[in-house]
């Protein structure tokens, strides 16, 4: 435990108090001076925190969860608009000054694969064991080696 005070809030009250992070943050800010806020979590939460602390000039850092592929700088898929310029969350971040982050673009980009993500989750939930078996099999099968002979036309 590195903090003097710890407050836990949950959406459904199953742990700590029921409510939003911003409700608790409001209380803490009202009770005394806050020097630094670090927000890590869902984008709407980080944006809501930034909207509260920004006007009060409280230094606020957010850790961005943009869509990444390799995480080593190679693909640029995790690019986020920070201070109106393109930054790669994997090599330039993932922590950024919350007041500089364009959350709208981040949310829009995070929604890019919503449909496909739903398909994949539905498929896994419908048959979890079968899906795992298929994955294991695939790791040992080289796709075109089997197809090249007959030259299949899908």
């Amino acid at each position: 435990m590195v903090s003097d005070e710890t407050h836990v809030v949950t959406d459904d009250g199953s742990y700590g108090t029921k409510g939003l992070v911003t409700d608790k943050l409001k209380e803490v800010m009202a009770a005394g001076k806050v020097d630094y806020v670090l927000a890590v979590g869902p984008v709407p939460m980080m944006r809501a925190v930034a909207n509260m602390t920004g006007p009060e000039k409280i230094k606020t850092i957010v850790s961005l969860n943009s869509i990444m592929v390799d995480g080593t700088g190679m693909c640029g898929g995790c690019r986020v608009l920070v201070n109106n310029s393109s930054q790669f969350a994997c090599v330039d971040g993932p922590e950024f000054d919350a007041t500089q982050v364009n959350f709208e673009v981040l949310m829009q980009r995070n929604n890019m694969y919503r449909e496909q993500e739903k398909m994949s989750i539905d498929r896994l939930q419908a048959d979890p064991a079968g899906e795992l078996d298929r994955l294991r099999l695939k790791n040992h099968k080289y796709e075109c080696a089997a197809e090249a002979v007959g030259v299949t036309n899908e």
Partner: protein
Amino acid sequence: MSDATQTKVTHNPLPNKERTKLPRQRVPEQDAEIRAHNFCEVNLGFPPDQARQESLRCIECPKPGCVMKCPVSVDVRAVIDLILAEDYLGAAAKVREDNALPAITGRVCPVEDQCESGCVLGKKGEPVGIAYLERFVADWERESGQFGLPKTAPSTGKKVGIIGSGPAGLACAGDLIQMGHKVHVFEALHELGGVLVYGIPEFRLPKEIVRHEIDVLRRRGVEFETNVVVGKTVTVDELTNDEGFDALFIATGAGLPRFLNIPGEHLNGVYSANEFLTRENLMRAYRFPEYDEPLYPCKDRDVIVVGGGNTAMDAVRSALRLGAKSASIYYRRTEIEMPARVEEVHHAKDEGVHFEMLVNPVEFLGDEKGNLTAVRCIRQELGEPDDSGRRSPVPIKGSEFVAPCAVAIIAAGTSANPLIQSTTPDLAITKRGYISANDDTLATSKPGVFAGGDIVTGGATVILAMGAGRKAAKSIDDYLKGLVQIAN
């Protein structure tokens, strides 16, 4: 005249005059209309009789231009003679003495600028199909289940770490293991091969072949370790100080993709070619939903690719195979200036890729959901030559137009990846952020640390990276011998 290059080769029964009359063998290909809809390999390779027929054309020059033009100096004539002797396994071993990845280079080398440009037959007619022959012996070896392995020197007890398992790293590993050193290769991703697996598509270089070449290296004694991001999960200094590596070779490859820095680049549907190809190749998105990796849908939609290099060709031909309604190359110069291999451009055209020359995107346009709907471009004309010697495009006033597209892929090159440089304080870098290495030895500012390939030169080709890997192996060997001398 006892020079090795003058040795009379005996397996070709034809006099030189007859050899030059033989036509170049055409390599069988998948039909363009069929292959435009599948991810199977385009070139099917020579059968043995065709390989021997093509080999008969070599006139065995005393000073072979093909060898001189090869960045890794494969002894082409010796290989061809072994093919004529029907000793294909021996031919494979011969290639492997100089080239750790023959099945790969036989597929992706820009041979028209290298070995085949040095072939004397090319002056009057067509050069010997050297790449197809190299590919043939490597494929024959793989399919036979046997290995044509070159001899290895006795163990030196020295341990070399190689950072990156792309072409530079693998070529370096192949030479160092042959010199008797212990070799350990680190790879950041979960699969080995670097650009060979994330960048080059299945239809040009099947992943099975990359895995086989890596298996050959493993069989020769090279150790591989995946999921290690040197510069993040472990530093260069930790490798040399704590993990006992006597020397390191940094071969981390082409880095951050460049974007165009125009409005709308954050719209959904705008990709770097690296991301598009990584999703497709490494993560198998072309087999979604069988594989979970998604790709923004290309099927029945207009796809444009901005750029004129091999990466652009790989991306546009992939889009076509994913079912794009139209797949177009947008390039700011003309076809003559395009850096892509001629064969790739031909293949793309045959498959139905549309080429839009002398255009430059100025803005990506989207709908209210942030999805890409169109690109605004301006037409250009060629002006004065720039630093690269190519004529610079100049925008034509009032020539703007809007083209509908749902997916735009930017293949405009890369800039340096900073991961290792930023965590290795005494490693000198260039103005552009690449690692500084001596041209001749590839030594960096840190003793015992060498660097080569795209992380030194910026984006280049597989074979040039392999050439750097070989050069580094030679320097590392000299360096390690020096260490032994100092110790004695």
